[in-house]
């Protein structure tokens, strides 16, 4: 690998020698030990850990379009581990720990910024719920701090504390180690590191079918020909149903749109990630100065990747209710990504009823922060043909077994309600 360092940076600054490509433009070979479908953060991280942790280098990632064009490049970049349900708590904390060492691990600056996330409470009941969440986190060794209104006024002076505020702010829960990561850098960093360990990253290659016999899956049909593989993993974000459907599987997943928004850049004033209590709404400020925010899914199944305007308005209303000063900012851009929604809001990382076919999907709103842990655990699951202990809670048959739902907010079993 052409390692990045201060010395290299200085040399390149002084010469006009171009930087080498970060990863090869690989052509698909005829056979691999593992083929991973989907070159998003999850697929690339899985390939990297297959090579780095399990010594497997006959691995390919096949991506329909180009690296970074899916949700890994469309999300709002928040990372945190303030989860409450058993299984989630441990998994997301493991992921946050991996984020903390990732720039060194990959020799690529993923720009982790642990600026802290504050979830706001607007009623005594929400305050109690946050205290409970914080206690569960602390019992699991995760940092959490309950903040009173006075402390919030000092930390976040720009919120609406007036008597006229639509939703009075009572307090909040701070996770100091939470924050943001540069999403593109995650895709590029994992791609480059995986490539340097021998993984083939094949762009412009759509999987259109599976090669199967009675013993299970043994390859894929693609728009660039047939590729044999001993094991195949699906990591296609909003298209899990589509790709699993090619193998005859029906999943507990619906595809929905989630939008994200960025304002024109302004001087730094939002130093944390802030989550609103009354509605799903969260906001932070990018290094370029734009306020980055998002809310709920649009609310009905869609693969259009184009958000509906009423959602823009609703999210803007949340923004102004929370930070009145935002009312005069212009919206610079907004876009949508297709995401899997599941009956309990939790994901799947598991073997499937078809031998040698592995699934990672159903990530709802939360897959970006999970990226390193998904890669780590899915790689182990593929290499050992058995679920990694941290992902046993993410089994495909948890609804059939009952009692193992991961519904953090008690929204019920309808995917579009999460």
């Amino acid at each position: 690998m052409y390692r990045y360092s201060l010395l290299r940076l200085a040399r390149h600054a002084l010469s006009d020698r171009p930087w080498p490509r970060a990863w090869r433009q690989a052509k698909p070979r005829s056979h691999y030990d593992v083929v991973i479908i989907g070159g998003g953060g999850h697929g690339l991280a899985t390939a990297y850990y297959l090579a780095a942790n399990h010594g497997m280098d006959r691995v390919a990632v096949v991506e329909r379009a180009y690296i970074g064009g899916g949700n890994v490049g469309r999300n709002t970049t928040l990372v945190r581990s303030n989860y409450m349900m058993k299984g989630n708590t441990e998994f997301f904390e493991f992921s946050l720990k991996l984020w903390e060492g990732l720039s060194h691990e990959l020799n690529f600056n993923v720009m982790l910024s642990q600026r802290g996330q504050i979830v706001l409470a607007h009623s005594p009941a929400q305050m109690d719920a946050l205290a409970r969440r914080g206690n569960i986190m602390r019992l699991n060794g995760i940092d959490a701090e309950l903040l009173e209104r006075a402390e919030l006024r000092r930390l976040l002076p720009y919120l609406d504390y007036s008597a006229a505020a639509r939703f009075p702010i009572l307090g909040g829960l701070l996770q100091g180690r939470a924050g943001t990561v540069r999403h593109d850098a995650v895709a590029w960093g994992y791609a480059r590191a995986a490539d340097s360990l021998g993984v083939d990253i094949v762009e412009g290659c759509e999987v259109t079918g599976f090669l199967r016999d009675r013993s299970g899956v043994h390859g894929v049909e693609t728009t660039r020909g047939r590729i044999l593989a001993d094991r195949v993993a699906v990591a296609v974000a909003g298209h899990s149903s589509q790709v699993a459907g090619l193998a005859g599987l029906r999943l507990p997943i619906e595809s929905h749109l989630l939008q994200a928004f960025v304002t024109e850049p302004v001087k730094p004033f939002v130093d944390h990630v802030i989550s609103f209590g009354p509605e799903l709404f969260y906001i932070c400020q990018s290094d370029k100065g734009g306020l980055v925010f998002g809310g709920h899914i649009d609310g009905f199944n869609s693969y259009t990747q184009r958000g509906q305007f009423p959602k823009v308005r609703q999210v803007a209303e949340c923004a102004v209710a929370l930070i009145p000063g935002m009312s005069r900012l212009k919206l610079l851009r907004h876009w949508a990504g297709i995401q899997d929604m599941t009956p309990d809001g939790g994901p799947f990382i598991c073997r499937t009823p078809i031998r040698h076919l592995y699934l990672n999907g159903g990530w709802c709103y939360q897959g970006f922060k999970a990226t390193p842990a998904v890669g780590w655990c899915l790689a182990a699951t593929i290499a050992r043909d058995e679920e990694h202990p941290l992902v046993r809670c993410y089994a495909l048959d948890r609804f059939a077994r009952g009692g193992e739902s991961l519904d953090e907010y008690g929204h019920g079993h309808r995917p579009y309600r999460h």
Partner: protein
Amino acid sequence: MLRVHCPLCGERPYTEFRYGGDASRARPALGTSSLEAWHDYLFLFDNPKGPHREFWQHEQGCRQWLLVVRDTATNVVREVIVARNAGPGGGQGPGSR
């Protein structure tokens, strides 16, 4: 913006409606004891990229539940009928699986 043509009220923005999800699945007969049948009914979705049979309730209009066929790849609404006219079996109307 997505607009739905309510057979009773005419074309309205989707914000007047409440989404009711996938309408293609038939509820198992009352008394069905197979857990698998209930699991599949509640939790498995075809999730098509294309025509999708779904329920919407015209909450801020006539309050009727409607059965809508909408293409999830384009958001074009192809067909709307009042859900109770869809026949027995809930969403199991013409053209369902």
